[in-house]
């Protein structure tokens, strides 16, 4: 089956004030695939990720040039409703960031802010999302407890469940395991394998083994430029460009 193009950027430049953080990045993301963005710190991979759901809009001095298309629609077009975009492109952050609310209210939050009042529906979505995030069995008796009492790994899966509850089409993950221990990391990675059956996933990671384990496609960024992108297996075993090779063999970074 030919992969379906879900989202892409075309000649994307990004500026923080006068500083250009991204140069001419063109990249494609396909449905039901996991794309990993790798590269040394400060290479722009997180910045790039945050362009995809316009999270960078929050930074007053930032500026974007070029295009990002979500199914043909330019997400930076003036007619685009950012709120709606973020509903379609969900995000999981580097550090688990549950709200200081109960487990249930955390998951229900996205539904409620989108105007859903039907209690039965919310309850059902909460359960489904927690099951999807492989957290249901651990928290099903603690739904009314505060989410801050969960372990770090559980909190991160809660954040994934929270993102899934609004049924996004794409899931952005910004180093979702960097604050977690190996066991919790493994759980999240297994989860990513499951989730890609339904979602398009784009994950930023510092950990090259992780990129190799979870992704179908890997894109290597270096000082604000996209250096190389390709099938994960091929990129790790036979990179075409020397900088990529230096990075994945650990010669810098």
């Amino acid at each position, binding site marked *: 089956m030919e992969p379906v193009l879900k989202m892409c950027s075309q000649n994307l430049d990004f500026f923080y004030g006068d500083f250009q953080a991204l140069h001419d990045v063109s990249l494609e993301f396909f449905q039901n695939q996991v794309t990993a963005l790798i590269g040394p710190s400060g290479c722009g991979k997180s910045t790039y990720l945050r362009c995809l*759901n316009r*999270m960078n809009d*929050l930074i*007053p001095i930032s500026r974007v040039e070029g295009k990002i298309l979500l199914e043909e629609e330019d997400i930076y077009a003036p007619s685009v409703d950012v*709120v*709606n975009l*973020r*509903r379609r492109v*969900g*995000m999981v*952050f580097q*550090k688990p*960031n*549950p*709200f*200081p609310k109960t487990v249930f209210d955390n998951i229900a*939050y*996205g539904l*409620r*802010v*989108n105007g859903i009042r039907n209690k039965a529906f919310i309850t059902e979505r909460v359960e489904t999302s927690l099951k999807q995030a492989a957290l249901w069995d651990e928290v099903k008796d603690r739904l009314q407890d*505060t989410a*801050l*009492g969960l372990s770090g790994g559980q909190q991160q899966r809660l*954040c994934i469940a*929270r*993102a899934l509850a*609004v049924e996004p089409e794409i899931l952005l993950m910004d180093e979702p395991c960097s604050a977690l221990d190996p066991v919790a990391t493994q759980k999240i990675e297994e989860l990513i394998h499951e989730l890609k059956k339904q979602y398009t996933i784009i994950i930023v990671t510092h950990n090259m083994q992780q990129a190799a384990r979870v992704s179908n496609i890997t894109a290597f960024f270096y000082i604000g430029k996209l250096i190389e992108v390709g099938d994960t297996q091929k990129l790790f075993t036979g990179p075409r460009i020397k900088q990529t090779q230096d990075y994945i063999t650990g010669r810098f970074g």
Partner: protein
Amino acid sequence: MVQRITFFLFRGAAAVNGIALLTIIYFIVANGVEAIDWTFLSQPPRDSMTKGGILPCIVGTLYLSLGAILVAFPIGVASAIYLNEYARPGKLLRLIRLGINNLAGVPSVVFGLFGLAFFVIYLKMGVSLLAGVLTLGAMSLPVIIGATEESLKSVPDTYREASLGLGATKLQTIFRVVLPSALPGILTGGILGISRAAGETAPIMFTAAVYYTRHLPSSLFDEIMALPYHIYVLATAGTEIEATRPLQYGTALVLIVLVLGMNLLAIIYRSKLRKRAQ
């Protein structure tokens, strides 16, 4: 050795705070407690204020504080939300901040004169509860704005990002995530500010408080008696200053208990909110 001496000095400096507070309280309690009985708390003054109680003053001060809270809280919190969540850095923002900082530094008697000129005379409110409430409210604004801004700043940005990332609007984010997290700090800071203002004499002496009134306030446009002004009156302008000394201390004691009580309420409420959040 140097370290020891320095720490000793620091500890001493910190202790001064406690000692000062305890001395004040001891002094007031020791002198005032004999004046306090049920009559004192439940009756209006009699015989040119040399006898009787201070009920109108207690009621007046409570009304003033409550009114100031109702006026200053919404405005203060809304201003802080604008400053912290919406305002883009620039000239306007700098101007507003300059205004707030200077407002905080304005002496209370100047607030009193402003209240007299603006609320009492220009807006024709007369010497009234309303004019006093508005003056005290204006005076508490910088404190409430400051406390609210501090609390808003202490809400981690990750909460805001998480909320926006789920497709919440900025307004939803503020009302459902940011404000609930900041509420304990806002309430405490705000109530501390108001209780401070409630003990002030200068802002109300031209705007709300009178020497003596036989009636408890029944409308916003009534003149009132208030604890701090009553102390001032008894201590400086009474007919028999020496003879009313116990009454003065008694009134001061009631005022202190009232103010500390308000602070205590704020603290209890805050810890309750905090517990619920965890």
